[in-house]
């Protein structure tokens, strides 16, 4: 009996707090309730750009007063949420498939905000600096090359001391954009990979490979066991100073993965809808295992009784992200989008309308 008294007291207390906060909130906001709601932007999606987005939104909020709530629930979730119109924008590490676009209730547009890259990291005695060709990478991850002193690796790395050691392969086991970029790259450089495995956020890896959870899980496996090779996000590898291989790109140059070489990878021609996979691009100095990450929104912003102010606030914020906001990328080890991509994104944002009229004048 005593318990139920305590419970009802607690319940009453919670109710009272709830009511009072409602009350005070109401007092403050009644005059511009509509205005305040217009300043709240809601987004959801990819986890990869989350640190960058939260920094960008907090910086933008300081000057504009716009509050942006971004939930990093994963790319798949971001696409679902924008499809259900429960968020103002969705974010995804892969551009929408034709099937996705068809199943959207209205026309959507998407544009890139930054770039990420996957690096090939390894743990070898003596820590040699390795060079890898697409052929070597595909061979290792298909388990055709199983020894570190394999002739193919040795031919490209005459100066490195390669041990007679088994190669242990580690990959990301949690569904992720990182895996998508990597398998997308492998599908482009190896027909064998394309037919046997394919590209996806989770794939049917060849037998005998290890899966680690997250960048930290794969990095842990690489660091713990000599002879292990795996792929991880560029930002994570830079922050944890791991051994990184330079990769021969489609133009035939060995490229060390850096923020600059990642940006350069995207410096080719961008289609008007920005739906392009830039892995293995033939830009001279571009690092080939790179990809955009996208933001998705509806082209016609007048839906679900949204106000014009809200649409304007949203598009202005997104505009800021591809211009001033790009200054936030490098300190967080993300790669900024190159000028051609900025131009394409500008055209897309200018095409967003409210009631048929362009939102940006």
């Amino acid at each position, binding site marked *: 009996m005593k318990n139920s008294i305590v419970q009802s007291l607690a319940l009453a207390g919670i109710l009272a707090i709830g009511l009072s906060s409602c009350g005070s909130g109401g007092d403050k906001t009644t005059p511009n309730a509509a205005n305040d709601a217009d300043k709240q932007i809601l987004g959801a999606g990819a986890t990869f750009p989350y640190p960058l987005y939260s920094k960008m939104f907090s910086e933008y909020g300081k000057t504009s007063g716009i509050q942006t709530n971004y939930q990093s629930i*994963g*790319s798949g979730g971001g696409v679902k949420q924008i499809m259900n119109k429960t968020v103002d924008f969705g974010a995804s590490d892969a551009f929408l498939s034709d099937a996705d676009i068809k199943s959207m209730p209205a026309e959507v547009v998407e544009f890139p905000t930054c770039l990420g890259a996957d690096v090939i990291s390894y743990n070898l005695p003596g820590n040699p600096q390795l060079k890898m060709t697409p052929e070597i990478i595909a061979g290792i991850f298909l388990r055709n090359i199983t020894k570190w002193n394999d002739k193919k690796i040795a031919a490209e790395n005459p100066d490195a001391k390669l041990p007679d050691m088994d190669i242990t392969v580690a990959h990301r*086991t949690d*569904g992720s954009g990182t895996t998508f970029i990597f398998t997308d790259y492998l599908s482009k450089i190896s027909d064998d990979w394309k037919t046997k495995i394919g590209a996806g956020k989770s794939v049917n890896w060849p*037998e*005998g490979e290890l899966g680690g959870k997250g960048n930290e899980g794969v990095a842990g*496996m690489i660091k713990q*066991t000599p002879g292990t090779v795996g792929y991880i996000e560029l930002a994570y590898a830079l922050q944890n100073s791991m051994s990184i291989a330079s990769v021969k790109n489609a133009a035939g140059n060995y490229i060390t993965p850096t923020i600059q070489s990642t940006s350069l990878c995207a410096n080719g021609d961008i289609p008007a809808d920005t739906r392009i996979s830039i892995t293995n691009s033939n830009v001279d100095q571009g690092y080939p295992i790179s990809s955009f990450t996208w933001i998705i929104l509806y082209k016609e912003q007048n839906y679900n009784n949204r106000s014009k102010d809200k649409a304007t606030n949203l598009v202005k914020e997104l505009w800021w992200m591809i211009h001033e906001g790009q200054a936030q990328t490098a300190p967080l080890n993300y790669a900024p989008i190159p000028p051609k991509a900025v131009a394409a994104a500008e055209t897309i944002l200018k095409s967003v309308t409210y009631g048929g009229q362009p939102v940006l004048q």
Partner: protein
Amino acid sequence: MKNRWRVLENKIFVRWLSIAAITTMVLLLIFFITLLISSWPGIKANGFGFLWGKTWDPVANHFGMFPFLIGTLITSFLSLLISAPFSIAAALFLGEFYPKGLIPNIFRNVIELLAAIPSVVYGFWGLYTVAPLVSKLEMKMHMPAPGVGIFTASIVLSIMLIPYSVSLIRQVISMTPVALKEAAYALGSTRAEVITKVIIPSNISGISAGFLLSLGRALGETMAVTILIGNSPELPHNIFSPSYTMASVIANEFTEAVGDVYLSTLIEVGLLLFVVTTIINLIGRLIIKKVSY
């Protein structure tokens, strides 16, 4: 007047208890039905072959969960096997030899604190501390030495199980009727004989219940196992092989799963984990019934 009030009070109390109990059961039922409905597209697409299929290929939408089932069962039972001698020993130490006093109290609290460590901490401790040791062992045995795999996952999991079985088993052991023990001593039994012939047999149902509880915990453990098991959906060659569990594949792939069949297949894995846990629990109860007096 006062009497009537007390009757009413009693009625309310009983009503309150039964509502709470029924709610729990109904919740479980709803949980099961929800899982069944959401996994229906997957069940239809995968058919019965899902249970013994060995390929997991999200790109081609081709799914089989046999390796996950085997991985789940092996890690759970192996970890139970590893933890059992330690759990029994600790429970006897705390329940029979030193039930009271400052040091046993500290021991008891420390063991119970093991349950309070988040499983992600266990996972990374395992990855950075246990896995390298296992890797060295594997190198000595001249086999591939990734360090992670069924063996590493089971060792760490067994440590996580200890507090669950110990706290229950210690309690039943400490409640062994004194008369029973005294009778055994009177017949000239040694302490070891009292333990093996009186205390353990007379509490066998409570001890089994303790292990059953920790087995349920092992079947469902996700984070630590995911970090340590190596996550390869293949049938293991030996206990050092990397493997994969049902809970791990859900945790790994659910957030980024796209497509209705893929998503509902992962929910189907959850449904089957639910079914497997229920079956194991039922078998466990049956065994307890059989062995207890």
